């Protein structure tokens, strides 16, 4: 049970107000006081750091829209002599396996998320709402497993995939990623916090465990499940080490693995490299732009239990 302290405590005080984004100006007077100077300085500091943080992304975009020749021009390194072009993008899409890797990433991260959320929610329910022999021991084991860094398991996992005869398949990439003791823990705590009245009513109506779980608790837990799902998805989408170790067939690679392992027969092409980086970055950044609030909330609620 050692780890409960690390993971459990933070949850309470840090939850963002769901409405925080709705009234963004909330703190200005409260934290900065009435001082105009403080406000200007703070704004300046914000602007400078935002520029520093956006610079690498801007540089990638800049390169991606150049021709190869302009991308490696040591003199006119900022503004392209021969104008902007989409060549980098069209080349990587047409010639490379990039679209395929993107679908692989989507498929694998989607499957990992679906399995992890369902399985963890069921286990969370079992640990929160049911009694069976060994329940406490198994839960303690689950909590302790939070301390196991998955990275240390790659060698035995690799061996295991050979033993199971599923080396270099989607299953090999997906299955080990679905074991998420942290999520079980978070969801168990979450179920613990839900009031029991509704289940009581359902039970009187003769509902079994499955119906209570599926029709009563899960609908109540949608925001929490979404938070967990988003977190798991980001993790799986960005996961590198295990997908890298478990796939040799380029047709099975995920985006992060593919773009770093498979090269172009025509050598290092910076514009193309950046074009594929931009394309690889796009999906999650786009999702973030549209669902910023959900993602922020997901990280804040799940993140402290995670890592």
């Amino acid at each position, binding site marked *: 049970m050692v780890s409960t302290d690390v993971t459990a405590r933070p949850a309470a005080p840090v939850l963002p*107000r769901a409405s925080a984004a709705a009234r963004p100006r909330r703190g200005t007077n409260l934290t900065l006081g009435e001082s105009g100077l403080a406000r200007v300085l703070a704004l300046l500091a914000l602007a400078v750091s935002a520029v520093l943080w956006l610079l690498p992304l801007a540089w990638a975009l800049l390169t991606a829209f150049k021709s190869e020749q302009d991308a490696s021009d040591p003199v006119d390194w900022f503004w392209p002599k021969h104008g902007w072009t989409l060549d980098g993008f069209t080349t990587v899409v047409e010639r490379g396996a990039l679209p395929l890797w993107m679908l692989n990433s989507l*498929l694998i991260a989607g499957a990992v998320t679906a399995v992890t959320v369902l399985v963890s929610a069921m286990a969370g329910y079992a640990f929160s709402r049911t009694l069976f022999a060994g329940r406490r021991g198994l839960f303690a084991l689950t909590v302790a497993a939070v301390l196991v860094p998955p990275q240390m398991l790659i060698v035995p996992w690799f061996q295991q995939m050979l033993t199971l005869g599923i080396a270099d398949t989607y299953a090999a990439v997906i299955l080990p990623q679905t074991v998420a003791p942290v999520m079980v823990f978070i969801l168990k705590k979450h179920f613990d*916090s839900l009031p029991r009245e509704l289940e009581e009513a359902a039970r009187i109506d003769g509902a079994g465990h499955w119906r209570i779980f599926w029709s009563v608790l899960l609908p109540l837990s949608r925001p929490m499940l979404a938070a967990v799902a988003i977190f798991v998805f980001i993790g799986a989408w960005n996961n590198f080490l295990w997908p890298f170790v478990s796939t040799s067939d380029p047709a099975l690679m995920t985006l992060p693995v593919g773009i*770093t392992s498979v090269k172009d027969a*025509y050598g290092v092409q910076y514009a193309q490299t950046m074009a594929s980086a931009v394309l690889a970055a796009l999906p999650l950044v786009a999702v973030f732009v549209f669902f910023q609030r959900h993602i922020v909330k997901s990280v804040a*609620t799940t993140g402290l239990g995670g890592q």
Partner: protein
Amino acid sequence: MPASPPSSARSNGPGLSRRRMLTATAASAAALLGAGALSGCGSALAADDDTVRLWDLFSGADGGLLNTMVDEAAPDMPGTRIERTVLEWGTPYYTKLAMASAGGRGPDVAVSHMSRLAGYAPSGLLDPWDTSLLEEFGLGREDFTDAVWQRTQFEGRTYAVPLDTHPFIVFFHPGPTADAGLLTKDGTLDTDAFSSPDSFLEAGRELAKASGGQGIAFGYVTDTAQGWRLFYGLYRQTGGRFDLPEGGPAEVDEDRMAEVIAFMAKLVDGTVNPRQLDYASGIAAFTNRQTAMILSGEWELGTYRTADKDVGAAPFPTVFGTPAVYADAHSFVLPRKPDADPGHRRRTHQAVAALLKAGQTWATAGHIPSYGPVTRTKDYRALQPQAHYVQAQEHVVLDPAVWFAGAGSDFQNAMSQVLQQALLDGLAPDRAARAMVRRLNTFLSKPSPA
């Protein structure tokens, strides 16, 4: 304990429509997934009967040439398609290849440096070639030189089909080299003028005078192999022992190692030849004619010829008495497949034979085709400067045949790092030699995985 409710309970109006949007996105993602799974299969199972899946590490000019070769080989392998996958060159390539082979799900055929065979074949990661099949498609033992063929063998079986030899040689700009009086009448390099450490350094001084800049370029700083390539070729010229018995210790001649290192350090001390060049700046120094000569792998021929269409080349001169030229060789290997289909294996043999016969194309990049019938043609002899260093393959030395050595290995890197300390940071030659031996012994002390 008030865990999560505040946030989760407060999912109000706008949240709903967002959630609907999320659902829609999820639905379309699901649709995509269906497509993805299908196209994924399409490609993964591209091991249709007529496709031979090849892994290689050729990008850049070599990569383009291999594409051409694949096209040219088509008539010799009717009905077969070669599907290339270019993986990142170096250690990761061999790691991936080993991992794929361990799983028995590797490609049908892969390119491997011959220097890596010692780490692969004994571990059971490769399947042997069927020499009678190769013979049937026109590749026989007599088509390869002894020095090369011998390295394809392990326990009496053939584990590699050599594609090329790529030696470490010298390139020069003919103009300044002639001015320095270092060319013979027929325009080839006067290697006698390089036949001892002192005369080599003297030739460098002459070349520097003639070029108006500096003499001989050698790019090695932070490189993971260059130092070792130069060192090992020169060391083998001394005739010194380099025996690496399993378990160690290494049986080598430290004095001769120190002698070679001292020579290398003088060569790049910055007086007549540039100091402190990394790989790319070495090439740049030569191509923009700051130097008249460069010590380099022949695989950069294309780069040099773009800068100087008359660029000359010669096998690495014999500086220490015994002719020896450091080289490696690309070869085709069969990653382990416990349940390989014989028909498909046959097709793979045929495809590899077809590629070898298209070796003339490969030779334009500078590599010496291993398949003898190619180098014996008139066309090949007309290739300049390739024909001037083809004899290098008579005296090639590859990395020691131990499991931890070879192209892209940690071993080459470790040796190159020590050499860099001697060449750049002033580590004394004898101490550098001892440091190399220490590192060698560390490698030897590790049990072979085989």
